[in-house]
C-alpha cells in the first residue's frame, strides 16, 4: 500500500462519510452545466436574443461559479471538521501535517474529478427538461432542441477542474494541524454553551424592529434610499437574533424548570443550547441566502406581473386606435380599413366601435377636459362587458381609471368633482359621483353626461377620435400575430395589448429565467447547508440516543425529540427568511404602489411548501438512521 493508494482507499471504502460532500459538489457542477447547456444553445448564437440578455447570462454564470466556489469550500471545511480524530490518529502514527494536507488534496482531486464527470452526466439527463422549461418561460420563436452540448461540456469540465484544484490547494492550506491532543479528543470535547448578553439580545430585537418598521413605513421613491441601511440593519439584526437572542431565549427556557424538566424538553433544550454555537452560523447563512433567493424571485415575478397587468388594465380592448393630431379624415379611414383587412386575413373576429372625443374648456386650461356622451360610453362599455351608465339630466359623473396608473399628488377625480360644468345657457351642472372604469384611457379623468346635456355643451376646444376592437377568438396566437402586423402597417397609432404583453414577456423572459435559476441555486444550497449541519451531529446523536435508550425511551418519544430538533433546525432559518422576504416584497410594492400580495404569497408559499417537503424527507432518513443505531 503506497501513500497514494492509502488516500484513495480511504475515500472509496468510506463512501457514507464522503457521500454528502460528493453529492453537493456534484450538484453544483450539474447546476452550472445545465445553465451552460442553456446559455450556449445554438439558437442564441443566431442572434434571436439580444446582447443584454447574453451579457446577463454571462454574469449569471459568473455568479453561479463564484457561489459554487464558496459553497464547495464551505462543504469541504465542515466535512473536515468531522474528521479531526482521524487526522489525530494518523499523526500519532507519524504522519506529518504535510502528508495530511497531501492526503486531503488527493481526496479532493479524486472527489472533484468524479463529481465533475458525474455532474455533467446528470446534467445531460436533465438537459432536455431544462430546455423545455426555458422554451416556455423564455417565449422564443425557435424551439430549443436538444443538442449535444460539446462547448458546455468543455467549459464546465475545465471550469470545475480548475475550481476543485484551487479548493484542494486552499483547503489543504487552511487545514492547520492544531495540538494533537485537541485533535484526538476533538469529537469528545464540547464546544461549550454559548453565552448571550442581554444587551445584545435586546439590540437584536431592536434592530429587527427598526429595520422592519422602516421597510414597511417608507413609500414610493424613499424605498430606494432606505434600501441599503435597512439591509445592513436587518442583516446585523439577523446575526444577533441567532447568536444572541435565540441563545438568550433558550437560556430563559432552561431556567424555567416546569418547562425545561417537562418530559423530553430537557433533551431538546440542552441539545439546542449546546449546538447553538455551530447552528447560529449556519442559521444566519441559510436565512440570508434564502432571503436573497426569495426576494430576487419575488421581485422578478412581481415586476413582470406589474408590467403586464398594468398594460392590461390601462388598455382594456384587444386593439385601440388613436390617430395622430394632424391626421385627416382620409388617413384615419384608410388606417381603419387596413386594420380591418389585417384582422380578416388573420381570422380574428372582432367587434368594433368608434367615437369622437371632444375636449371642453372646463378648468381654464389649454388641453381641456374630455366630456363623453353617455350613449358613446355605453357602446364602448358593451365591448368589454362593463356596466352601462345612465346619468339624469342634471347629473355629471366623474370617471377615473383604477390604481393601475402611477400618479403623484392628488387624484384627478378630486379636482374634477369640485368643478361644475357650464352649459351654453349659463346653467351649471355639478358632478355628483366618481366611478372607476377602464372603458376609456384618459389619465386626467373625464366626465360622462346625459345625451341631452351633451348637446348643450357648446363648442369643444379640441377634438380627437378613438376606435376600439374587441376580439371574440379565444385563441391567443392569431390575435398576437395580427397585432404584430397591425403595428407594422399602422405604426404607433395602434395599441395591441396581447402583442405588447407578448413582447414584454419575450424581453423579460431571459431575466426571469436567469433570476429563477440563481434563486433556486441559492435556495437548494441553503438546504444542503442544513443537511451538512444535521449530519455532522448524527454520530453524536446516535451515541446520545443509545445511552438514553438504555435508560428507557419509547420510539414515539424518540421521534418526538428528533422531530422537534430537526424542525427547529430546518424551519427556523426559513421562517426568518420568509418574514424577511415578505417585508422586502411589501416594501417593493410600496415603491411601485402596486399590490404584490398575490405574487409574494405565491412565491413565498411555494418555497415554504418545498422546504416542508424537504424537512419531511430528511426527517424520515434521520429517524431511520437513529432507530437502526438503537436497536
Amino acid at each position, binding site marked *: *500500500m*503506497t*501513500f497514494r493508494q*492509502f488516500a484513495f*482507499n*480511504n475515500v472509496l*471504502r*468510506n463512501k457514507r462519510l464522503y457521500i454528502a460532500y460528493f453529492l453537493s459538489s456534484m450538484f453544483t457542477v450539474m447546476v452550472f452545466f445545465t445553465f451552460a447547456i442553456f446559455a450556449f444553445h445554438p439558437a442564441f448564437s443566431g442572434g434571436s436574443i439580444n446582447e443584454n440578455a447574453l451579457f446577463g447570462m454571462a454574469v449569471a454564470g459568473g455568479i453561479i461559479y463564484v457561489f459554487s466556489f464558496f459553497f464547495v469550500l464551505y462543504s469541504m471545511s465542515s466535512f473536515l471538521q468531522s474528521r479531526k480524530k*482521524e487526522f489525530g*490518529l*494518523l*499523526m*500519532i*502514527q*507519524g*504522519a*506529518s*501535517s*504535510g*502528508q495530511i494536507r497531501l492526503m486531503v488534496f488527493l481526496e479532493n482531486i479524486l472527489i472533484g474529478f468524479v463529481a465533475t464527470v458525474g455532474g455533467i452526466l446528470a446534467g445531460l439527463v436533465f438537459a432536455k427538461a431544462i430546455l423545455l422549461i426555458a422554451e416556455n418561460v423564455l417565449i422564443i420563436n425557435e424551439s430549443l432542441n436538444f443538442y449535444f452540448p460539446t462547448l458546455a461540456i468543455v467549459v464546465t469540465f475545465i471550469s470545475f477542474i480548475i475550481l476543485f484544484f484551487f479548493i484542494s490547494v486552499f483547503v489543504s492550506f487552511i487545514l492547520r*494541524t492544531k*495540538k*494533537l*491532543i485537541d485533535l*484526538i479528543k476533538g469529537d469528545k470535547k464540547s464546544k461549550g454553551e454559548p453565552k448571550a448578553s442581554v444587551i445584545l439580545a435586546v439590540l437584536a430585537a431592536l434592530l429587527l424592529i427598526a429595520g422592519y418598521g422602516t421597510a414597511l413605513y417608507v413609500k414610493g421613491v424613499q424605498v430606494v434610499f432606505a434600501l441599503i441601511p435597512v439591509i445592513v440593519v436587518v442583516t446585523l439584526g439577523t446575526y444577533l437574533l441567532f447568536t444572541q437572542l435565540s441563545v438568550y431565549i433558550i437560556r430563559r427556557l432552561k431556567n424555567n424548570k416546569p418547562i425545561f424538566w417537562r418530559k423530553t424538553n430537557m433533551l431538546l433544550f440542552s441539545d439546542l443550547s449546546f449546538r447553538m454555537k455551530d447552528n447560529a452560523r449556519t442559521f444566519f447563512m441559510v436565512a440570508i441566502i434564502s432571503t436573497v433567493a426569495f426576494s430576487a424571485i419575488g421581485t422578478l415575478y412581481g415586476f413582470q406581473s406589474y408590467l403586464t397587468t398594468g398594460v392590461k388594465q390601462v388598455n382594456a380592448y384587444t386593439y385601440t386606435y388613436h390617430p395622430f393630431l394632424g391626421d385627416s379624415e382620409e388617413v384615419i379611414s384608410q388606417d381603419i380599413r387596413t386594420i380591418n383587412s389585417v384582422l380578416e386575413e388573420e381570422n380574428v373576429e372582432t367587434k368594433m366601435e368608434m367615437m369622437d372625443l371632444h375636449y371642453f374648456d372646463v378648468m381654464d386650461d389649454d388641453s381641456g377636459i374630455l366630456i363623453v356622451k353617455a350613449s358613446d360610453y355605453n357602446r364602448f362599455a358593451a365591448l368589454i362587458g362593463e356596466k352601462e351608465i345612465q346619468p339624469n339630466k342634471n347629473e355629471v359623473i366623474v370617471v377615473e381609471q383604477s390604481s393601475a396608473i402611477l400618479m403623484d399628488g392628488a387624484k384627478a377625480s378630486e379636482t374634477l368633482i369640485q368643478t361644475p360644468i357650464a352649459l351654453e345657457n349659463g346653467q351649471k351642472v355639478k358632478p355628483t359621483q366618481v366611478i372607476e372604469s377602464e372603458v376609456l384611457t384618459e389619465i386626467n379623468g373625464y366626465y360622462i353626461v346625459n345625451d341631452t346635456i351633451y348637446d348643450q355643451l357648446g363648442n369643444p376646444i379640441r377634438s380627437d377620435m378613438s376606435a376600439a376592437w374587441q376580439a371574440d377568438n379565444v385563441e391567443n396566437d392569431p390575435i398576437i400575430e395580427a397585432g404584430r402586423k397591425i403595428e407594422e402597417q399602422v405604426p404607433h397609432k395602434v395599441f395591441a395589448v396581447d402583442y405588447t404583453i407578448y413582447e414584454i414577456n419575450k424581453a423579460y423572459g431571459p431575466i426571469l429565467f436567469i433570476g429563477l435559476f440563481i434563486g433556486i441555486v441559492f435556495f437548494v444550497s441553503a438546504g444542503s447547508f442544513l443537511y451538512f449541519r444535521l449530519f455532522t451531529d448524527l454520530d453524536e446523536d446516535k451515541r446520545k440516543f443509545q445511552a438514553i435508550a438504555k435508560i428507557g425511551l419509547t420510539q414515539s418519544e424518540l421521534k418526538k425529540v428528533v422531530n422537534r430538533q430537526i424542525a427547529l433546525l430546518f424551519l427556523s432559518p426559513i421562517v426568518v427568511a420568509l418574514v424577511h422576504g415578505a417585508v422586502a416584497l411589501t416594501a417593493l410594492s410600496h415603491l411601485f404602489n402596486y399590490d404584490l400580495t398575490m405574487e409574494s404569497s405565491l412565491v413565498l408559499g411555494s418555497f415554504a411548501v418545498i422546504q416542508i417537503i424537504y424537512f419531511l424527507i430528511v426527517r424520515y432518513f434521520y429517524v431511520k438512521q437513529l432507530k437502526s443505531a438503537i436497536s
Partner: protein
Amino acid sequence: MLKLTKVSKIYEGKVAYRALTDINLEIDKGEFVAIMGPSGSGKTTLLNIISTIDAPTTGEVEMEGKNPHKLKKNDLAKFRRNELGFIFQDFNLLHTLTVEENIVLPLTLDGARVKEMKEKANKLANSLGISGIMNKRTYEISGGQAQRVAIARAMIHEPKLLLADEPTGNLDSKASKDVMEMLVTINQQEKTSLLMVTHDPQAASYSDRVVFIRDGKLHSEIHRGDSRQAFFQKIIDMLSLMGGDGNDFSSIRV
C-alpha cells in the same frame, strides 16, 4: 534511554488543575515499565506527554538525549514515525483500511517500498497469529485480534519505545494473557523499551518494574523479582495500601 526531569502539567481553565507534579522517571533500554495508579492519578497524562501527544507545562523529557517536544513539526512527525509505537485501549484502527493496510500504515507514511512492507507485515502477522485475517476489515475481527493488529502496527517500524495505554482494558482474560505474553516476547527479543499504563495488576505483573503514581505525584515503585506470582502479590498489596487512607473509616457514625 528515556528520562523525565521534574515534569509538571497544569491544565488551564476556569479552575486550573494540576495533573502532574515534578515527575522524575528514567527508563533504560529494553526495560518494561508499568505505570499504575487510581483513576485520575495522571497516568494517561504522563503517557501523553511522553508520546508527544501532549506537552508538559514545565520540566524536560529526553529520549536518547534529545527533547522531542523541541522538535519542529515535520521532525516531530518523523520522530513519532520512527521512534515510537502506540497501543491503545480502544485499538484506534482505521476502519477504512484492511488489517494488513492498518499494519503497514506507519511504513506507508514513511514511503517504504511495497515489497518490504509486505514482508515485514507477514512476518509480524505470523508471530502474532493474525495471518488468517490480513484481508479482513477492522469491524470483522474480535477485540483480541484487533489489539494484536494494533501491536503489529506499533511494531512494524521497529520503534525504540513502545507505549501502551491500557492495552488489556477491552479484552477478556484469555486475550489479555496472550497480548501481554506477546508484549513480553517483543520486549525480550527486539530489546524494545516498553512503557505501559494499566489498571490491571495481572497485566502489570508482566513488567520488570511498576511505578505507582497518585494525585499526579510519584508514589513508589516496585521491582520484579524472580517470580511473577510474588510480584503480582506485591502489586496487589501496594494497590490496597494506596487505595485508602488509614482514617477512611470513621469510628463514630453520625
